[in-house]
């Protein structure tokens, strides 16, 4: 049963053109998978109301990356509402209309205008070899831009395994000397690894941040609400593992019956993330459901430590 506060919240959203059904579905997913409370959502509603005058500024930097995490964010069911009405994306190379000089000007102005107040979302790893020569934007190295922008943010969220820990760019032998944000410049960051990160985890983090909720994190800088348990412990195939029922061939009857994928190389026991419960693309699926082992993509250095992917570790 909904409280008055919730009813009012949805009405406000609808006035802003956000479909109640979309948002309700979305919040349900958030609350169910992340332990976020309706009161939290309610407070965010107040934040959104208060933000009618000014929405929280977000500066989104792209470094050594594949844009997969931006794409994942764009798969959020009402991403238009988030971009136009909830936050203000001041700089984001993939979606912004301005290019070249005008784009650079936007970044410069936003950092100046929101100095110490903006949220910096970082996607991609930072090249550090040869003074950062292997990655540049507007003639400046990723490293220069990182030093210039990140220390001036109120909070930094490193999305995806690349921004968090270097990711694929840092896989051995790492010719560009790629590193995650904290390793590259020593700045603290909330790490949301995954390849790509689950957009629910980003939204959950932003909601908690807007709500001034404390963010408990593990030793790798990952919020516990999303990364507190292993994929294995949340896996729908867990009971078969406990019964010693293991699939040994892809596409087999055993995989279909839900047998454990450990013998096929699954890295679920060593991987901390909420894929089995949060799932992807509006709760459609996640890799283990699709019959493929977990490759450990939210663990630091997984491209080296978790490979070969199809061998039991």
């Amino acid at each position: 049963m909904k409280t008055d506060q919730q009813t009012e919240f949805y009405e406000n959203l609808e006035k802003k053109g956000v479909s109640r059904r979309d948002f309700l579905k979305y919040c349900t997913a958030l609350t169910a998978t992340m332990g976020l409370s309706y009161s939290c959502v309610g407070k965010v509603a107040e934040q959104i109301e208060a933000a009618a005058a000014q929405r929280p500024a977000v500066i989104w930097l792209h470094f050594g990356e594949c844009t997969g995490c931006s794409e994942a964010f764009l798969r959020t069911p009402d991403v238009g509402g988030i971009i136009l009405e909830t936050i203000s994306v001041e700089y984001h190379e993939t979606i912004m209309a301005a290019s070249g000089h005008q784009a650079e000007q936007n970044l410069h102005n936003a950092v100046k205008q929101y100095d110490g107040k903006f949220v910096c979302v970082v996607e991609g790893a930072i090249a550090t070899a040869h003074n950062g020569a292997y990655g540049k934007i507007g003639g400046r190295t990723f490293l220069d831009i990182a030093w210039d922008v990140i220390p001036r943010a109120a909070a930094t969220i490193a999305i995806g395994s690349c921004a968090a820990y270097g990711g694929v760019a840092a896989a051995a032998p790492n010719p560009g000397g790629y590193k995650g944000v904290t390793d590259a410049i020593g700045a603290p960051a909330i790490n949301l690894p995954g390849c790509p990160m689950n957009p629910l985890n980003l939204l959950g983090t932003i909601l908690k941040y807007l709500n001034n909720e404390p963010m408990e994190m593990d030793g790798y800088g990952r919020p516990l609400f999303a990364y507190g348990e292993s994929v294995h412990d949340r896996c729908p195939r867990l009971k078969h593992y406990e019964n010693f029922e293991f699939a040994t061939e892809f596409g087999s009857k055993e995989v279909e019956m839900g047998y454990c994928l450990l013998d096929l190389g699954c890295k679920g026991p060593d991987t901390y993330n909420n894929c089995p419960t949060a799932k992807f693309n509006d709760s459609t699926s996640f890799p283990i459901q699709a019959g493929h082992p977990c490759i450990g993509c939210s663990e630091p250095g997984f491209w080296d430590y978790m490979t070969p992917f199809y061998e039991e570790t």
Partner: protein
Amino acid sequence: MGQRILIDPITRIEGHLRIEVEVENGKVKDAWSSGQMFRGIEMMLKGRDPRDAHHFVQRSCGVCTYIHALSSVRAVEAACNITIPDNARIIRNLLHGAQYQHDHIVHFYHLHALDWVDIVSALSADPVKTASLSENVSGRPGTAEYFRTVQDKLKTFVNSGQLGPFNNAYWGHPAYLLPAEANLMAASHYLEALKLQAKAARMHAIFGGKNPHPQSLVVGGVTCIGDLTPERLDEFTQIWKETKEFVDQVYIPDLLAVASFYKDWAGIGGNNTTYLAYGDFPRKGVDDDLLLPGGVLMGDLTPRSLDTNLITEDVTRGWYEPGEARHPYQGETRPIPAEVTYNTEDKYSWMKAPRYDGRSAEVGPLARNLVAYTRGQKDVKQLVDHVLTTLGVGTEALFSTLGRTAARGIETVVVGNAMESWIDELRSNIARGDKEIYQPWIMPDTGMGYGLNDVPRGALGHWIEIDKKKIKNYQYVVPSTWNLGPSDATNQKGPVENSLIGTPVADPKQPLEILRTVHSYDPCIACAVHVIDPHTNETYKVRVI
């Protein structure tokens, strides 16, 4: 010497791209395209397990997700002589088809549209007139109320003073020609498409576990056995249908409506003579009977057969040590292991310059349309003719910025239509008890193979050599490298550089026209710059856990 204009970063693309042009008498006289980042995925692959390669290469790009993984498993399957089950072929086609639908819609509305659509002008549109415009041109007309709501939303947004992604663009530029009402209609569909694409991506999640970076391909087939249920197929079919309706009723009508105001652009942004398509969507065996045929056009409209032996990459103008142009199997690349200098007279990009029989070749929707058209592919021919007739232009209009953008829409329809037959095939196979999706196999000690596909941005090929059951050499030649690569040893420019020459530039401080042609190629720079092996012949030792 004319005036130099530098645009860096080029936004609304994937990756880090710098474009420089020289403008004289209001037109581009010369152009340079430069990739500004590399990571070096190929060299990471050396010494690793060939089965793992598709996971690495898929991370070349999250926009063109899936497609590198597909090339990679095809290459390893070729090297290991594996024939995948028919259901695996169908499911791979469905995933690939879904990528075409998603990618092209996002490109048109979210990456390209703002080059033609002035969002600020939409604020002064009359919602009633917009409704009657949409009644005339759109398959999904909106009411005045609907357009007023969207306009109010935009006004609230603009009045907030926080323009976010729309800040500081070229609004009001004289090259924007749409009436305010057409701008409002397009802006409304920009928002609709944003919602639709999130849904369309679920087609990947159904058989691939997630999007981006679906995870159900393996060498030998696919893994999604638990999703071969009538309910899952219905779910897929429903989303496919909704996506197709959007394409037919909104995307294509918008494309034609916008194009009708920009017919000048049917004479700008061409200039290429060689067009290359590998073709894709096998309807029986892997290499037989492709929905989109492969072939090469070299200066005329007679399609020739593809010969992959004629593919080379030249590194003269890239930041690499000097070396001769090589075929991917012999690919040898040595980047300058130091700070590099951007110099348009010498070396200016991280991209290599792929060549076919020594020629720079355009790849992508236009190349595919031209090859299919000249090969007499009925679906493509019919739609191309329809578009040309509707716009009242001749076939020469295809060789342009506008032609390239129209070609993308045309193949979205062709591939989208074909997906229905693959869904039916899969359904009937399952109904008669055939759920085979994986062919067990054993890794040979040695092998060589390549996997070709034609992906939303163009012809993609991966070449692998296996030795002692590990990757000895791995090279891939990528669509955006073909299209956005630099000049070569003979000073022959890349396709985008060629296309920019002659482009009018009304205001050098706001080079909107440059963006139109560059975006018409849908650049993806993370894909384009993935190569490098600074330690030639040195094989990285795999860490054994």
